[in-house]
């Protein structure tokens, strides 16, 4: 992942660095391949492995190595096939502990080549430490996604307009509510902007934000001003020329860090049940506005919730659509 997809914000725990997650994923990949290699050796050449790590070449130790190898293969395949690797990495940690116990047992055996067993034990201990660190990180990542802050969404769309046109539209922050469904308004004064969003049951959430990066025709980053919201949030949008003269790729990254409690819940609601779908909808409306001039309405889409596709007589809804 490119470095500049990192969300730009110094507010310590409000920000989620994707890069870290990516490095965690790479580590899982490395551990998975390591598991597979070791597992194959143990299952198919237990005698050679026994010799290498200084174990007596007996039927018992070969069988033990084969079993350990099978476990190693399982965790290797698990690591490589699972998008959420935390469970499998913790499985490896448990396996490492077992290996250490077995090696300790071997050290006490009279027929063992002690320096080799000790070296193998040291190697396993090292791997175990790596596993434990990786598992802890993987757990943090997945819990971040499922339970607490920060929430992080990355979505992209291609628009048939030049980067300069798209940048100019976005840079005028007051345009954002035209396509971001839950924003009511953005007012700009003296470099700061005041964002008002619709909450559930007619409530409003308001905060201030400032632009922290402004690269004309390329990128804009903003973050909430500390102290103006209980929900630190920010975003980066990048405008990249689409290959083949197809306009502009818009890459939008949003992060917010809801605290527990009612305000956090209300804020989470702003992004809908499924934040990434909400953001995808916002980008689709942005494309409509930039390409066709306005958000496109159907007879059903102008109402909240499911409605038959037929005209309405409700003036408020009609005027709301025409706005």
């Amino acid at each position, binding site marked *: 992942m490119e470095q500049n997809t990192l969300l730009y914000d110094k507010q310590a725990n409000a920000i989620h660095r994707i890069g870290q997650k990516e490095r965690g994923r790479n580590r899982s990949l490395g551990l998975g391949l390591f598991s597979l290699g070791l597992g194959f050796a143990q299952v198919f050449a237990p005698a050679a492995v026994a010799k290498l790590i200084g174990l007596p070449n007996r039927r018992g130790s070969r069988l033990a190595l084969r079993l350990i190898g099978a476990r190693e293969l399982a965790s290797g395949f698990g690591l490589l096939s699972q998008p959420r690797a935390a469970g499998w990495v913790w499985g490896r940690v448990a396996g490492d502990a077992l290996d250490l116990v077995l090696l300790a047992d071997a050290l006490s055996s009279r027929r063992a080549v002690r320096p080799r067993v000790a070296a193998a034990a040291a190697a396993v201990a090292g791997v175990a430490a790596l596993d434990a660190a990786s598992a802890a990180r993987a757990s943090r990542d997945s819990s971040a996604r499922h339970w607490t802050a920060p929430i992080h969404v990355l979505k992209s769309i291609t628009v048939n307009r030049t980067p300069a046109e798209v940048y100019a539209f976005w840079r005028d922050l007051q345009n954002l509510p035209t396509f971001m469904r839950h924003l009511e308004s953005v007012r700009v004064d003296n470099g700061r902007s005041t964002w008002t969003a619709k909450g559930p049951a007619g409530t409003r959430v308001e905060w201030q934000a400032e632009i922290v990066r402004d690269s004309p025709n390329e990128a804009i980053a903003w973050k909430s001003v500390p102290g103006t919201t209980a929900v630190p949030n920010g975003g980066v949008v990048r405008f990249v020329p689409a290959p083949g003269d197809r*306009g502009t790729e818009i890459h939008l990254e949003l992060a917010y860090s809801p605290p527990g409690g009612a305000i956090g819940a209300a804020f989470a609601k702003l992004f809908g049940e499924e934040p990434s779908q909400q953001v995808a909808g916002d980008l689709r409306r942005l*494309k409509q506005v930039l*390409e*066709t001039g306005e958000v*496109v309405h*159907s*007879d059903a*889409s102008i109402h909240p919730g499911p409605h*038959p*596709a037929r005209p309405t007589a409700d003036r408020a809804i009609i005027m709301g659509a025409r706005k």
Partner: protein
Amino acid sequence: MKANCWNGKKKVTVEQVPDPQILNSRDAIVRVTSTAICGSDLHIYNGFIPAMEKGDILGHEFMGEVVEVGKGVSNLRVGDRVVVPFPIACGNCKACQAGLTSLCENSNPNAWLAEKLWGYSPSGLFGYSHMLGGFAGGQAEYARVPFADVGPIKVPDHLTDEQVLFLSDIFPTAYMGAEMCDIEPGHVIAVWGAGPVGQFAIASALLLGAERVIAIDRVPYRLEMARSKAGATDVLNYEEVDVYEALLELTAGRGPDACIDAVGLEAHSHGPMYAVDRAKQAMMLETDRPLALRQAIRCCKNGGVVSVSGVYGGFIDHFPMGAVVNRSLTIRSGQCHVHRYMKPLLTRIEQGDIDPSFVITHRLPLSKAAEGFEMFLNKTDGCEKVVLQAA
């Protein structure tokens, strides 16, 4: 106004509903004069199209008189007589600019629903489920037409509604189906289905220079229309002959150069495979039964084209991929990009190359829409195409 609404499987009712209003600046409101029931409406009627809501206004083949335009529409005026294409297209996105208007990237406000089923979303359509936008259809006294500066085509007064109405869908749909066959002099084209699209596919293949066009169906009056009106050189009743053997015979063992599936997801047939597909569809194990498509693939010559105009919605079983790969077949399909065919085909009509009204067998007032659906579905009273007169 009055409008024909879907109210569940095999239940349509003409109801009083609010008049449409301008919602977007590029909208127009059209007072519908003529509207038709499409074969694809029968898929909705029979409950095969997902994401319908009770009360949805049906209909995507319609024409009429412009009664109001939004401030963004400068090419139409109140009083203009127009035919409206069934896909809704913005004209601004890359797909529209490439002429692929049924793939408009902006006209489906419910694109996410279509993405769930199909991966990406096509354009919005009139009266064709919430997955395709949730737009009210044209089987009504009035219709709101989004992107009216792009879609509707003005038609001259000397042509009747019945001559130009089918520019909205089935004539261009069939023409595109024939065009996808890459017809060259000497080519033999086989067309599965002698419904309205099949009739126009036959006529279009001839307009495009086919040597011979073979119609395949089981309904005698439809085969008769194919021969006498559309111009089919041969007709095959699949309940009387083995289609594959008959096509081999007609082409001296080569097979048809291209095959057109103008049937779609509710194909009929006989034999055990039909029973299997019906049962699977009833148990939701497959959404579409592709009997005509399978046969078209089997019958198509080596290196030929199978052109699919019939509507499919979801998933099919026993797709003969082996024949496609090993015999270098090309499969082409798509909801018709109607916009790009309207003008050239209107010219064809004006020149007298074709008079599309030949498919019409029934004219009913809008209030009798339910009767029209039933007749069209059951093929009673020689029904081929029902036009509803709304005004």
